[in-house]
């Protein structure tokens, strides 16, 4: 009975997927999502490009490496450039400030906890999925949005408590296992 039900659900899912893909609904949704995301990311890139004018009083900036701005604004947002931009944003959000300041101990702790955060995210994903997904996306978004170190530190307050709690949970679990 159970097997029959599973087979029926499987067939219905298969047909639904086939219908959604072949009718172009999925690609339409994907294109609409891309149309929504791309101008927003481009606007942020443009802000990064003009960061010295916009935040003239800020002391520490970090901008995208190389000619990534020019490339992305000239060629649109292919997957490769999108990944470059997103990775850069995440690295900045997780690991800034890289200069010596009052936040340096916290930065060192962030570096130490990063592998444990990844482990904790996998280990506890079934228990707190929304918290982990929100934390990770929040880091990406804030990294993309803020090219000024002081503002980035302030804005990532939202998700850094999640980062430290999951990271410490991962570390504690590994230590208890040993």
């Amino acid at each position, binding site marked *: 009975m159970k097997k029959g039900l599973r087979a029926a659900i499987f067939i219905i899912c298969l047909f639904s997927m086939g219908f959604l893909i072949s009718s172009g609904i999925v690609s339409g949704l994907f294109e609409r999502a891309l149309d929504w995301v791309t101008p927003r990311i481009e606007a942020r890139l443009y802000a990064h490009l003009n960061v010295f004018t916009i935040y003239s009083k800020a002391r520490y900036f970090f901008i995208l490496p190389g000619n990534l701005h020019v490339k992305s604004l000239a060629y649109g947002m292919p997957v490769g450039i999108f990944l470059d931009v997103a990775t850069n944003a995440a690295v900045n959000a997780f690991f800034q400030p890289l200069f010596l300041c009052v*936040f340096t101990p916290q930065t060192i702790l962030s570096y130490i906890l990063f592998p444990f955060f990844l482990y904790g995210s996998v280990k*506890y994903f079934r228990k707190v999925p929304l918290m982990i997904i929100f934390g990770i996306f929040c880091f990406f978004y804030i990294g993309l949005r803020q090219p000024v170190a002081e503002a980035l530190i302030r804005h990532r307050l939202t998700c850094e408590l999640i980062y430290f709690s999951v990271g410490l949970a991962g570390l*504690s679990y590994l230590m208890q296992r040993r």
Partner: protein
Amino acid sequence: MITASVYDIFVSVTDRDFLLPDSKFYSVSGWYLTLMFSGYDRTSIPKDAVPADEESRKVFDDILYNVKWDSSHLPPVENETNLFFYIIAAIYSVFGYFPLGVRFFNITLSVLSTVFIYKIAENNFGETPARIFLVVALFLPSQFIYSITLCKDFIRVFLVAFILWILYGGERCLKR
């Protein structure tokens, strides 16, 4: 709170808020809204209610002549910046012009957020990591330093922590 008081004295004496240069903007905007709540309108603000220092006066004049908030035309609560103006205005309406009160408010939000995440960690990760987290988070430089400023971000931090606490075990804590 002692650190916040010392920092508040430092800012009052030197007129330099080096941790958050935007503080004056928030504080003066909140003060302007307080005057609107107290029954004044744009044309009837008394001279002694206008801030004395030049930078604050510039912000005040900008709101008065360019932004043109009035008792019948107040800013809509559409983002956290405007919400923060109203919170500052509420604090100033009770205590008068009192930036230290806003600092205490931020400290409270910061500690509450930490406690909410601690409760989530206790319910889902176990007691040991939760306790370590509590110690780390309460003395985290960014939380500690920015909570003594007039920083609007703690509203968002608190809301996120509160919603996550409700989603992950808040009801269990209340039932105990």
